[in-house]
């Protein structure tokens, strides 16, 4: 009898939380942290890195946009490891761009950020955010960070900007990626790229 009452209380609190979330306009999100799956024919794996240590949000999701071949479902949710790595396997050979990376502000706030990188025609340093993959393989889309570019005051909010970063290196990012691909055939390509980068050092 006592256990039934406890269960009812837990259920009640759970329902209150769900109702609060659904009526407050809160965005319910799901962070994809899974390992890579086996490659399918004519596909690529794209990977990159995002440093959220100075960002106003915790990096928890992101999307690549498929530009070519054309599709009705161009947005692909990336997988990540919560240490900065993001990647996605089994994308059709084609052209992709990083649509946005984002996540919640954290704490008690239900606010979130969706960060878009600048246009590469005016900011060529972000060229790696655009990927033209002409054949199956693994492709690096760059490492980036968001930082406070102008400190906010009493009556103003902080402003933020993004920039490509050289730390971690592609080699270090690949070592993170290896943990996600090690049980698949993708790993041969990952290890080959690691060997190539070590050789060129």
């Amino acid at each position, binding site marked *: 009898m006592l256990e039934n009452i406890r269960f009812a209380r837990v259920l009640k609190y759970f329902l209150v939380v769900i109702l609060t979330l659904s009526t407050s306009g809160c965005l*319910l999100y799901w962070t994809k942290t899974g390992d890579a799956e086996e490659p399918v024919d004519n596909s690529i794996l794209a990977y990159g890195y995002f440093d959220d240590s100075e960002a106003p949000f915790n990096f928890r999701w992101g999307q690549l946009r498929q530009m070519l071949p*054309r*599709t009705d479902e161009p*947005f692909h949710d990336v997988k990540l490891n919560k240490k900065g790595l993001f990647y996605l396997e089994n994308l059709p050979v084609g052209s992709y761009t990083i649509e946005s990376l984002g996540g919640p502000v954290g704490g008690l706030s239900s606010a979130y950020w969706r960060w878009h990188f600048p*246009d590469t*025609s005016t900011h060529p340093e972000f060229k790696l955010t655009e990927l033209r993959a002409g054949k199956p393989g693994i492709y690096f889309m760059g490492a980036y960070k968001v930082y406070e570019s102008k400190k906010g005051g009493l009556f103003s909010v902080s402003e933020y900007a993004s920039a490509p970063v050289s730390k971690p290196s592609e080699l270090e990012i690949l070592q993170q990626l290896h943990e996600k691909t090690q049980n698949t055939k993708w790993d041969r390509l990952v290890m080959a790229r690691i060997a190539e980068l070590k050789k060129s050092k």
Partner: protein
Amino acid sequence: MTEGNNLMNQNLRNAVMGIFLALMLGGCVMPRTSIDSLSAVDKSKEVVIVGRIEIDPKIQKEDVSLKNTIGAGDLYRQFVLRVNEDVGETTNYMADRENMTVVQTEEDFYITQKRPEPFKLYGGWFYTAFNGGNGGSISTVLFHIVKGMKIEIPKGADAIYLGTIRFTRDEFYNLKAINLIQTDYEAAQKRFQKKFNTKMVLTKVRVTQAAN
């Protein structure tokens, strides 16, 4: 239904859609659209600018991702002109609210300009995604004409031929070239006279850079 009615309904639908979106985005400021009748033009105070926007390669329907929207099927043809004021590289929609002018790509636009101020064009933007659902988002691409194009309004002109502005892009929507094509004057004149059932002649003018 006649072809004329079809065209009129389509234009009306497009205009309504543009207004609806602009109201959502622009703080309830009504956007301007291409005119459908010369009777709406006060000739003593206004002149009609005749032009066309082309994007090469064309934006196809599947290039604009639509989620949780109703009646936005023609959004892929909308282009929001930035006229008369250069707000720079910003993609903040509010920046355009005073001069928001919605036109359709690949077809002539007919928009009014107050005399005697010169008409200036700084490019424009278009949608590549619109999600109206929970956590929804909008993606747009800006084609900015740095320093702008300018037309001085000659006295006595009622309608002015601007020509076709062709934006060439890559698959990532990076702007690769901007060309002003003024070789279709005769055809544009015929289309203008037929559309408005008028004998009014389009005035050719020199297009210059808006800023030094």
